[in-house]
């Protein structure tokens, strides 16, 4: 009975979110004179020829890989109640420096790629580590410091690109680093597509897809099946309780941020190793922010994040055919935006339902806390988030929230 209700609760919020988002989006489309069903039809149409269809799938997968890694990086921190907005800066620094390192060295293929990956993860971890150190030593909110570090990363990456790491000809419109030699390119998976009997598309399917899957599995195991993961989730649910049971909160903050940053460092690599082979002024930016939305939608659960990344990538691809069909591509933006907002709303609704059930005595024990993947700690327990070990105010409200009487979440924020 409880297991069923737990499962229901964990599925309720995302399902509600998607339904709400679809309804709102359809209403908006009607308001601007677009037939929602026609829009949907265009979005799921992957083209006429097998080659076009496979290309569309490749485009979606290639877009989903960095989104998945971004969501994962955000989620690791989220699970312990840390809001890492700095993923954007972490992956930018990681990409520019690993591109520079990759171009500067020459090694046999697997080793070359490995070095680039390790450099990217290290840089990402160091950049995120600054946030962690500031938090545990000076009590600086990670939200503030990571946003600030995004701007510093932007400027620093630009300096590195236009200065020491510049590889493009002077006067070229697009500034790039030196190209990584071919031994540092990640092989594409187009051979696999061929083996599956699919048409060989003109686009390369990123081999980094496999790395992303492995990282996803590792993170899932780490969070769900290890002592460290338990400590991390426990701290996320209640910092004071975790620290009372012997978890070293400061160490947890540092380890978690290093881990989150290391994964963030991978975000730029699918593009870097799979197609661009340089970091340049045209390198895709903004993935770190999209990662926050993806993590929210995926409820900070690796499988959920994978689904969310695929959904966002699918919507993104749809923007082009929509325009060709004469439908404003803003439809995609509207859907993406409403999904994110709906997740917030749905989490709140499911939390209230859970509390009402608890108050009416359906559950004997305190209300089920879900599987920990509670949309950024927006758990059904009604408590506001633990704000890390250094926050004193939130710790007080946390105590009153845990008593389950009042609902300060909405008003105290």
């Amino acid at each position: 009975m409880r297991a069923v209700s737990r499962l229901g609760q964990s599925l309720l919020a995302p399902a509600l979110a998607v339904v709400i988002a679809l309804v709102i989006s359809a209403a908006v489309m009607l308001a601007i004179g677009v037939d929602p069903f026609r829009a949907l039809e265009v979005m799921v149409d992957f083209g006429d020829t097998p080659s076009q269809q496979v290309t569309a799938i490749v485009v979606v997968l290639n877009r989903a890989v960095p989104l998945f890694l971004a969501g994962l990086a955000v989620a690791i921190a989220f699970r312990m109640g840390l809001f890492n907005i700095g993923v954007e800066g972490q992956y930018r620094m990681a990409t520019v420096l690993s591109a520079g390192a990759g171009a500067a060295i020459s090694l046999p293929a697997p080793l070359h790629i490995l070095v680039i990956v390790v450099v990217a993860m290290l840089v990402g971890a160091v950049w995120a580590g600054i946030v962690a150190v500031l938090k545990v030593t000076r009590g600086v909110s990670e939200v503030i410091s990571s946003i600030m570090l995004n701007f510093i990363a932007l400027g620093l990456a630009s300096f590195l690109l236009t200065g020491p790491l510049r590889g493009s000809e002077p006067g070229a419109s697009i500034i790039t680093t030196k190209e990584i030699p071919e031994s540092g390119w990640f092989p594409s998976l187009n051979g696999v597509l061929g083996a599956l009997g699919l048409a060989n598309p003109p686009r390369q399917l990123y081999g980094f897809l496999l790395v992303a899957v492995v990282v996803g599995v590792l993170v899932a195991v780490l969070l769900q099946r290890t002592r460290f993961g338990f400590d991390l989730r426990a701290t996320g649910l209640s910092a004071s309780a975790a620290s009372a049971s012997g978890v070293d909160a400061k160490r947890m903050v540092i380890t978690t941020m290093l881990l989150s940053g290391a994964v963030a460092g991978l975000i730029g690599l699918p593009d870097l190793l799979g197609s661009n082979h340089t970091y340049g002024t045209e390198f895709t930016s903004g993935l770190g922010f999209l990662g926050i939305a993806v993590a929210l939608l995926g409820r900070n659960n690796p499988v959920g994040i994978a689904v969310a990344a695929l959904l966002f990538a699918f919507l993104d691809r749809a923007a082009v055919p929509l325009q060709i069909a004469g439908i404003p591509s803003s439809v995609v933006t509207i859907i993406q935006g409403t999904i994110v907002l709906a997740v917030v709303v749905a989490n709140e609704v499911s939390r209230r339902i859970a509390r009402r059930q608890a108050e009416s005595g359906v559950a004997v024990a305190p209300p089920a806390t879900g599987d920990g993947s509670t949309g950024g700690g927006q758990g059904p327990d009604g408590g506001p988030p633990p704000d890390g070990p250094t926050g004193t105010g939130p710790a007080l409200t946390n105590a009153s929230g845990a008593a389950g009487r009042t609902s300060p979440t909405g008003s105290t924020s």
Partner: protein
Amino acid sequence: MKLAALALAGSLALAACASDETGSGGSGSGASGGSEDGPKIGLAYDTGGRGDKSFNDSAYAGVEAAIEADGGSVQELSPNSDASNRADLLTQLADQGFNPIIAVGFAYGDVIGEVAQQYPDVSFAIVDSTGVDVADNVTGLLFAANEGSFLGGVAAATKSETGHIGFVGGVETPLIQSFEAGYVAGARAVNPDIIIDRQYISPAGDFSGFNDPARGQVVAQGMFDAGADIVYAAAGGSGIGVFQAAAASNGRAIGVDSDQYETVGDPALQPVIMTSVLKRVDNAVEAYIGQFVDGTVEGGSDEVYDLASEGVGLSYSGGFIDDIQSTIDDYTQQIVDGEITVPETPTD
């Protein structure tokens, strides 16, 4: 607090999603205009899309003029917010049978070669980037933006009463730096002691500077507050913010690419737009489509539009610089005759 975090995340994600698209809503009428038998023109915009009242709109104006002359239809596409799908735009246009396909903006330089090689029967053009050594079916439409900006600098220095002018660049890329170089050289040719504030909205690699009027306004306001009375906005869609700052400080501004006096669409801002440094993307695009219709398009080469071919120049709308036209013409002649060589990269 947690709710605040979620809401913050939501708004950030929204902001990340929604940074472009201003124009695509208004223009999304799909394949529009003209007859069925003319060319099916594909037009892929730079970030900012239609409605930037500048660069992209100018390209569209050229297509419109070509359709009026030769018939045909146009399909416009805007990239997604992080412009990661540029190759996709071109591929899809080619797949849908559009020919010729015009990519607006040097940013397509990265991807156009690869796509063009996959569609050897389609003619591609790229604005602001070269077609040489890219593919046999790519034509580059290049502009001597530094020469036009030189005249902008001449006008600013001649008209400035404080001996202090400004330059707001959108993104610190080599392309916009050539605007800066020309502007500075022009202003110093008139008044070697002039003070020129130069600032870019975003650094290389961050393209938000072309589409961020709020930051454009802040940067320009700083210049006006410091004593500048004329500021040149080479910043695409961010230029509106520069005009607003000029209007708020009784200063004046110089527009870019299009005749922004005509396109700004706000009567309150018109009086501050002293002139615009025209980059006749419309002429270039129209001429290219004309060549395509005549079958005389040459791929793998560049068409250069400069002062001599009237591909760049100043606008006189509003009549604010009519009185100094002889000075402008004088400098124009010197550049055309080669007596003045306008630099392409900024000094000091």
